[in-house]
């Protein structure tokens, strides 16, 4: 009765109260999924009077294609048969690490060849050591000259006094 209705079951025994539904791919009409409405028409309502969109009972759910494992499609196989391999992506995948490796190898040889031409004497430890400022002993410093440095004394200790001692 309605244009959007795409499937109507035969008359079923209401006493069963069950209908097994196997979703058909043709119902999707080329789409990945579709929303559908299921309504029940009892026998006391005529076909002309029953409109699924205005029925007081209805259940909406989604029908969709199941999961698919990606494999080489027929189109891809046809292209391969014609000698067309769309493998430019593999060149890109291989080129990036190759560039890195070549760079590092070149850098190694460059450093090897220029090893006699480098002068790092100004940052060697002996140079840095010679630049350290020697401030001398504390007592020779003018600021601390008057300080009297006491010798170490033992801390007072608790002496136990007992009757036995």
């Amino acid at each position, binding site marked *: 009765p309605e244009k959007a209705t795409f499937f109507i079951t035969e008359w079923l025994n209401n*006493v069963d109260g069950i209908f097994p539904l196997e979703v058909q791919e043709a119902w999707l009409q080329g789409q990945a999924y579709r929303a559908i409405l299921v309504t029940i028409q009892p026998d006391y309502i005529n076909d002309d009077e029953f409109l699924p969109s205005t029925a007081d009972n209805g259940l909406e759910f989604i029908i969709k294609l199941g999961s698919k494992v990606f494999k080489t499609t027929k189109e891809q196989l046809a292209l391969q048969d014609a000698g067309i391999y769309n493998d430019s992506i593999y060149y890109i995948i291989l080129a990036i690490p190759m560039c890195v490796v070549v760079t590092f190898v070149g850098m190694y040889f460059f450093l090897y060849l220029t090893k006699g031409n480098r002068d790092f004497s100004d940052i060697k430890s002996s140079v840095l050591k010679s630049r350290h400022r020697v401030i001398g002993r504390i007592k020779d410093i003018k600021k601390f000259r008057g300080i009297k440095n006491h010798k170490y004394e033992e801390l007072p200790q608790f002496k136990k006094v007992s009757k036995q001692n």
Partner: protein
Amino acid sequence: WRDVVMPRPKDTTTTEAPKPWVRTIYDSAKEIVTPTVIAGITFSAEPDKESDPLKPWVSLKKDGSPVTIKPEIKNGRTKNAYPSYSTYFQNVYTTSLTYEDLGKPQNMDPDDIFEKEIFVDDDDTYTSLNPVMRCTPLSYFQKGPAKNILSEPFCSPREKTNLKVDDTYFITWYTKFFTHPVTEQIAEKVRLHFTYVKEDARDKNLHKR
């Protein structure tokens, strides 16, 4: 390493395929019942000669796909037993009983009439052969954006569930929902209409491909 386990050859002459059987219904009337297997579930199978209280039954998941439930006895109680349908598949009759009929109860006036409700089970000649759990209002769910609309008469599948191509799902409904508005007779036959609808904008493109 481990030994290779060779698969057993398939028995092409299996006896497991359900065969038609004859039963007596309504006193002497006989009929041939042909079992049907749908989604691994055998409908109208010949009942076992000995009734098994732990006989497996079939429940339905939220999307309407079947799942077999095996009852078991734990601590003296049956777990996962076949569900009881309360009085949903019973008919109620009211009988009037007089003072004498009831054997002169001491707290009843002799002129009064006592009305008693009697529940009688529906005819289960055909429904008893269905191993799938039946739909009752107890199994209704809430639907709609605010989950405030009852799903009657449907119990499964739940609203907006995804049903995949080539898989089998069971649509179930409460049979007593469809009563004639005038005669109050329960509909004998029904049929399902499947209609395309426009999907809500909020749900669009949210489906995993």
